[in-house]
């Protein structure tokens, strides 16, 4: 087995990897991320493998299964390089044609090309698709190019050059200084300056010190960390090693959710490879720096994303947070100085060391530098993972990158920051996205979930959804969070079931403020945010629920009813057949059908089935 024992060795291996890559005529890069897996990419990959073998093409054509390419909505995805053809929604049956036409003859297959939802124009190449055009892919840059399970691929994109730069050309203080100057702030939610955090841990005079990579990505609606680990695990490992060198740690931990099996697998492979190649272990590259890393699989507790709870979990305890100070930099894992960074934060580190703080600094706004990865989901045309420069407006994200709202509907709000964040109404979509502006409008950057909501989304229901989440995930340690969030949920439940009372809105606001002020950790301190921000911007919806007993968006089941529009009904009998509770009555071809509200469970089957749009949802309760 080859070993990298000096910077020169590494350079050599990088050259070899590049030469090997350049020898191959055609690359078929197929997205193998979890999103595409959900759309059936494994079958396409299998078919492609078999067909290439059958045709004896494995020598000149390389099938590369990459990490997430971001455009999950259109999966399974494929890019044929260097020609650049971008194909989406590929089925196994398409494989033969792709090889024969595109790979061998250079002809494009129109059916598989991306179609712009607005102009209906077909677009041939990845870089011309608006979804990709408006992005700034730094951390994600290589996700669609390299195979995450081959360290040689990472070498071929100058992988581990940042580590060499740090170990051989910079002192620990210089590395920290560079990261401080870059303005990098934590991408996991808090936004604390990364360099500062490193400095604090570096200054502690105690041994051993630990570094932890926090991959306990728990915010519902966010999956960027998983995609980085799945698609480019060596990048995270390199970032971690640079951090460990800077603060003087020789042991690291990657705390990753067990619910992310592919990420766990890929990071395990990466660690194994790094060990074999001599990039982990004693005296790395002959620099005198030694480092080992251990994986800890999270056992499914949202609270373990909180740093002190995460450390308790590594120590084999219930994941309960403890008061800060002392901060982990002083007393962390097993009471030792510990530095915890999020996956995306660490993914930025090698880029900063390689390209310099000034380069990083030139992207973004005054206090928020670089790019941010968001998972753009919900009621938006192009869903997927996007990496955009800080300072881009929400409107640009939703309409330029996201391609607008499906079905000609109106955007109502964008929710950012997961259960700790808030809902930003459409009037504020022109604010630049950075740490400070988002908190000014009552939300937070968070880990990067952006859920787009349209007119059919009920904001009270959304607030209830998040409260249900936080109260369920509350560890139960401090009463404001344990009891307070439950009380808030009870009030929301009564509002959405038609039992809302005068004064409920004020009660929610008061309770929320108290919980924010008195909770022990970040979970409780931010749990009321979704409720408070929706009251701030969508008070009329709360009032409609409480006073009119109506859900204007048509979501809350107790505050709506279904109605058959007599003039539209053709008595085709379809609705009656799909009704699971026999709430609809009528004779085929006879009079318009009748729907009994007291039996109806509002399952939506009849509305989906009716070809004449004759069944409507009416806000309010039937007389």
């Amino acid at each position, binding site marked *: 087995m080859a070993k990298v024992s000096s910077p020169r060795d590494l350079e050599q291996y990088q050259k070899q990897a590049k030469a090997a890559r350049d020898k191959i005529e055609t690359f078929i890069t197929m997205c193998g991320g979890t999103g595409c897996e959900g759309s059936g990419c494994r079958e396409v990959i299998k078919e492609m493998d078999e067909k290439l073998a059958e045709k004896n093409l494995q020598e000149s054509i390389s099938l590369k299964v990459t990490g997430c390419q971001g455009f999950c909505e259109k999966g399974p995805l494929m890019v044929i390089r260097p020609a650049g053809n971008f194909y989406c929604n590929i089925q196994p049956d398409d494989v033969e044609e792709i090889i024969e036409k595109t790979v061998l003859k250079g002809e494009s297959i129109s059916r598989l090309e991306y179609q712009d939802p607005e102009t209906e124009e077909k677009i041939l190449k990845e870089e011309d698709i608006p979804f990709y055009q408006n992005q700034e892919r730094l951390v994600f840059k290589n996700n669609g190019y390299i195979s995450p399970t081959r360290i040689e691929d990472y070498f071929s994109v100058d992988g581990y050059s940042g580590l060499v730069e740090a170990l051989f050309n910079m002192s620990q203080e210089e590395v920290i200084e560079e990261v401080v100057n870059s303005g990098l702030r934590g991408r996991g939610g808090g936004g604390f300056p990364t360099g500062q955090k490193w400095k604090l841990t570096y200054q502690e005079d105690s041994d051993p010190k630990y570094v932890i990579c926090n991959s306990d990505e728990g915010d519902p609606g966010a999956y960027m960390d998983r995609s980085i680990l799945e698609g480019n695990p060596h990048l995270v490992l390199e970032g971690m090693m640079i951090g460990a060198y800077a603060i003087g740690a020789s042991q690291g931990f990657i705390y990753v959710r067990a619910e992310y099996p592919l990420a766990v697998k890929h990071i395990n492979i990466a660690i194994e490879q790094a060990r074999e190649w001599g990039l982990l272990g004693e005296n790395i590259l002959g620099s005198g720096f030694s480092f*080992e890393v251990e994986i800890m699989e999270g056992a499914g507790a949202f609270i373990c994303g909180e740093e002190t709870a995460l450390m308790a979990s590594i*120590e*084999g305890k219930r994941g309960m947070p403890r008061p800060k100070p002392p901060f982990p930099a002083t007393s962390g894992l097993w009471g030792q100085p510990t530095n915890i960074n999020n996956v995306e934060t660490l993914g930025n580190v090698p880029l900063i060391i390689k390209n310099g703080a000034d380069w990083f600094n030139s992207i973004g706004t005054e206090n928020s530098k670089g790019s941010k990865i968001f998972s753009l989901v919900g009621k938006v045309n192009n869903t997927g993972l996007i990496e955009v420069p800080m300072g881009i407006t929400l409107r640009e994200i939703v309409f330029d990158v996201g391609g607008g709202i499906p079905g000609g509907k109106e955007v109502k709000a964008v929710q950012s920051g997961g259960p700790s964040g808030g809902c930003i109404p459409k009037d504020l979509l022109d604010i630049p996205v950075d740490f400070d502006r988002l908190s000014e409008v009552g939300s937070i950057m968070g880990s990067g979930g952006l859920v787009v909501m349209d007119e059919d989304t009920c904001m009270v229901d959304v607030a209830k959804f998040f409260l249900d989440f936080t109260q369920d995930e509350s560890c139960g340690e401090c009463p404001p969070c344990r009891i307070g969030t439950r009380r808030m949920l009870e009030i929301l439940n009564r509002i959405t079931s038609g039992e809302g009372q005068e004064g409920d809105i004020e009660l929610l606001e008061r309770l929320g403020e108290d919980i924010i002020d008195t909770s022990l950790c970040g979970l409780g301190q931010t749990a009321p945010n979704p409720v408070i921000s929706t009251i701030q911007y969508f008070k009329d919806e709360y009032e409609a629920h409480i006073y009119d007993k109506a859900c204007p968006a048509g979501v809350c089941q107790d505050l709506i009813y279904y109605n058959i529009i007599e003039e539209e009904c053709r008595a085709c009998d379809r609705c009656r057949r799909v009704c699971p509770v026999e709430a609809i009555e009528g004779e085929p071809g006879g009079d318009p059908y009748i729907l009994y509200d007291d039996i109806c469970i509002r399952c939506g089957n009849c509305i989906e089935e009716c070809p004449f749009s004759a069944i409507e949802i009416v806000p309010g309760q039937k007389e």
Partner: protein
Amino acid sequence: MELELERVDEIVEKNKEEAQKKSPLIPVLQDIQKTYGWLPEEAMKRAARKLGVSLASLSGVASFYNEFRLKPLGENHIVVCTGTACHVRGAPLLVAELERNLDIKVGQVTEDQKFSLETARCVGSCAVAPVILVNGEFHGNMTKKKISDLITELE
């Protein structure tokens, strides 16, 4: 059901050996669950003894984390993602459909032990929401119709 408890000993030994600086306690529970599909009390007792901790503290950890199951699952395990993206795209209707179709509530197992139903907070496949997992396999862009087809297939 007769459990082969010797396997618990192996699990504890293996994890004690593998853990460098982390505690082997949670990995042991994870492996026990991988082996038996859940955490049987007998296995927990044995593991606690082997690890040198009280059964109370081991149970305390097991009951804290969502991953651990203190009762067995059905032959086919269905998980509906109820994360934000799935929620706004109709996951609650899918849950209701499954509860109706299988005649069980979330967290229960059908009488014939064929199906169990759970919800998950977010499985991170938000772009193809709503998502359900059947025996660990992802199914994106789920509809009620696709669900009844799936269940018929599994029955």
